[in-house]
């Protein structure tokens, strides 16, 4: 490898990193405004409620990873974010709401985006350091709107006025949340 080639590669690496780090400040003023006024009910009369809970883990506590068995990661009542009313901005999806709420309350959240195929959308990997497969091989995050489980990504679900959204952690692929797969 020549010295010039090395320099070019290094420059490209640093450039990619810089672009990534500063990309968040570009065109985000609208979202920042929305995060700031997420609970300001004077703005509009359209509202939705969000709740994040992981109470199923409490029943399967021994299956949980050893280093996650602490109260900071799994609260005693199993509720990470209690029922909170948020303003519904136009064009909001369930994912937008979750991202706004986690940013506002300082809850850690990681997602993975997929842009290929018919089922494009964001997949929630973990909230509050509880990740998929942290509590057994059938565990992960699911969401329900008004008691129903939509069968597609939360970033594709447009919200309506007075929707009730719950993000819940499951340890048995949704069976402990009340989903029963019918065999036809």
């Amino acid at each position, binding site marked *: 490898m020549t010295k010039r080639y090395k320099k070019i590669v290094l420059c490209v*690496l640093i450039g990619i*990193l810089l672009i*990534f*780090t500063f*990309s*968040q400040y570009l065109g985000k003023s609208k979202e920042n405004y929305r995060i700031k006024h997420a609970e300001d009910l004077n703005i509009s009369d359209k509202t939705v409620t969000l709740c994040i809970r992981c109470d199923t883990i409490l029943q399967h506590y021994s299956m949980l*990873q*050893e*280093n*996650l068995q602490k109260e900071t*990661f799994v609260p005693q009542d199993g509720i990470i974010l209690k029922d909170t009313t948020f303003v519904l901005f136009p064009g909001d999806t369930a994912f937008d709401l979750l*991202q706004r709420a986690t940013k506002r309350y300082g809850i*850690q959240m*990681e*997602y993975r985006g997929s842009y290929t195929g018919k089922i494009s959308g964001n997949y929630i990997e*973990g909230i509050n*350091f509880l*990740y998929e497969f942290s509590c057994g091989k059938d565990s992960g995050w699911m969401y329900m709107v008004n008691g129903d489980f939509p069968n597609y990504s939360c970033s594709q679900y447009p919200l309506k006025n007075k929707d009730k959204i719950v993000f819940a952690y499951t340890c048995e692929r949704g069976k402990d949340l009340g989903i029963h797969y019918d065999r036809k």
Partner: protein
Amino acid sequence: MKKLKWNQRHPITIFLHASMMLLGTMLTMHPVMLFLSLIGAFMYGMVIEGKKWWQQFRWCIWIFAIEMLFFPCFRHNGVTPIASIGGQAITLESVLYGFFMSILLISSYAWFRVISFWIDEERLLYLFGSIWSSFGLLLSMIFRFLPMLRQRYREIQEVQRGLGRGNKNLSLPEQIYLFGKNSSTLISWALEHTIETTISMESRGYGIGKRTTFHRFVFRLQDVFWCIGMIALEMIWGLGFIKRYYVMYYFPALEMQWNSKTQFGIIIYAIGMFSVAVTELCVFMFRKKEVS
């Protein structure tokens, strides 16, 4: 390469030690053990190659760069955020995980390099020749057979062209007739060749049954001691590994196990890693004094 005392050991002893070092490096993510393994491999490498050894590890900076800069961009788990990319946090934990992962990669690479000095072709053939000999023969025959067939088909075609039959402007039925003729010639030639090879192999003693190959390795008493000692060490260490005494959690918060059992395991690990290098170093120092 200098002449080493360890290379006089029996190949089975050397192989046992090498596989244990590799397993011990690759299985654990405990930072202390990773550093011990790195130091052990580098000690031996310095004895073998001296200053030349360091030149091989210049490119390892790239491993560090990739693991510590790019890995955190794709894994955002961790309690302490440093920066953020696209709205997701880069955390100290994932950077540290990348650091120790690259140390694991580098130390296993170093061990492989050391092992390539220990086990040369002769020893490798001695170790695996008895298990895979017939399979190896079969493979080598197959690999030889295909290019040979292709070459022979070309020869047949040339002969046909020389006889005036292989002109380019032939009609389709004529082409098919010629192809059939050529391939039948090829098959009969190949069969003839296989008969020849079987006869020659038989006359050289293939298929008689118990045959031995010449080797110059002797399993001495020292080998017995080395083998027993290493197996005992590895079994004690492996017991602790199965019972999860050397677990290191990187996500979401750093959590290192450090009790008396872990320390005991680390001492045993260090003995395993440094035993050969230390004996080698002692011999090396002793020799130098003799000369001067």
